[in-house]
């Protein structure tokens, strides 16, 4: 096998791993009922889900 073929193969593998990493990183946080809970102040705990709630400081 020629050097340039090895180089193309290596680039393809690195590129594939990069894309796979990107995809896995984009996976949204899953809500797991009954999963481990955060402490009341959230310190030192892994939240099991996130949820964005908007508000305006007005009643």
């Amino acid at each position, binding site marked *: 096998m020629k050097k340039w073929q090895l180089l193309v193969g290596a680039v393809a593998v690195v590129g594939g791993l990069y894309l796979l990493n990107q995809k896995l990183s984009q996976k949204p946080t899953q809500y797991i009922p009954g999963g481990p809970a955060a402490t009341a102040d959230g310190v030192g705990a892994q939240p099991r889900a996130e949820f964005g709630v908007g508000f305006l*400081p007005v*009643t």
Partner: protein
Amino acid sequence: MTQHSASGTVFKAQKFTDFPSMKEALIARKIDATFMIAPLAMKLASDGVPVKICYLGHRDGSALVVGKDSPIRDFKDLAGKTVAIPSRFSNQNLLMQRMMKKNGMPIDSMVLKEVPPPEHPSALASKAVDAFIVGEPHPSKAELEGYGRVLYLMKDLWPEFISCVLVVREEVILQQRPLVQELVDGIAASGEWLDEDRETGAQHRKDAAFVVGNMFYSQKPELLEHVLTKPIDRVSYTNLMPPKETFDEIMDLAVETKVLPRRMEFAEYVDTSFAPDLLKVDVPFDRLPMPTEAQLAATKAASQPKPAEPAKK
């Protein structure tokens, strides 16, 4: 709302300064849910945005305010005047229409001017408007700063008045039901906690004024304590299940005044299935955890305006 629920979900509170940008964030799925004025939520549903009203934020909590030395003494005196409203799609707008009808006044007997809520007090102070109707703490601000006088609290005009409601995107309701339930249970529990010692000193409300004023609203705790305690029923946080009869009335008013293009059935825009049995709601604390000195200092520093960068040559 606390940042962390007892069971481990992070509810990220995102502050907005106006309803149009909040609406856009909800449409663009930048947020999963929001507290929004009820008719605006109904308009979104009417426009085909997949959202449902799942709970109320509070009851009452708005006021009609006039200048301190204004000759306006009752609703009919507002004829020919300019009154600021938070939005065309607000229940405050519909209440004004309802009151004009009730008093036999033509619908054009006063000018209703849309003004963003935080600008209501300054508009009154500068006499750009003769009165304003909006949610707290803006009426209390005008009162405490000495240029506003409450003509009516909402509880006196439309008892159990509905202003802001919890709106949730439908795909979240379908796919993350336990999360929505956790959120609604948390709102119900917070409401129970805020109202449960109202007749015995209202320490819970005083705690809430301190924490929310410093940590979330960046407003003076004294102002929020005024809102929550003077009088004690100025705003209430129980009985928050969306009531069909009241929403039908809001819908009829909205269609009649052309705020909404068509009448919708209650089930088209409301989902009451998350509203918990209040007798079973667990309030997980007695006193609210107070922020530490370091947290207060960090919040104060974050709210300070940043110095302008020097102009580049």
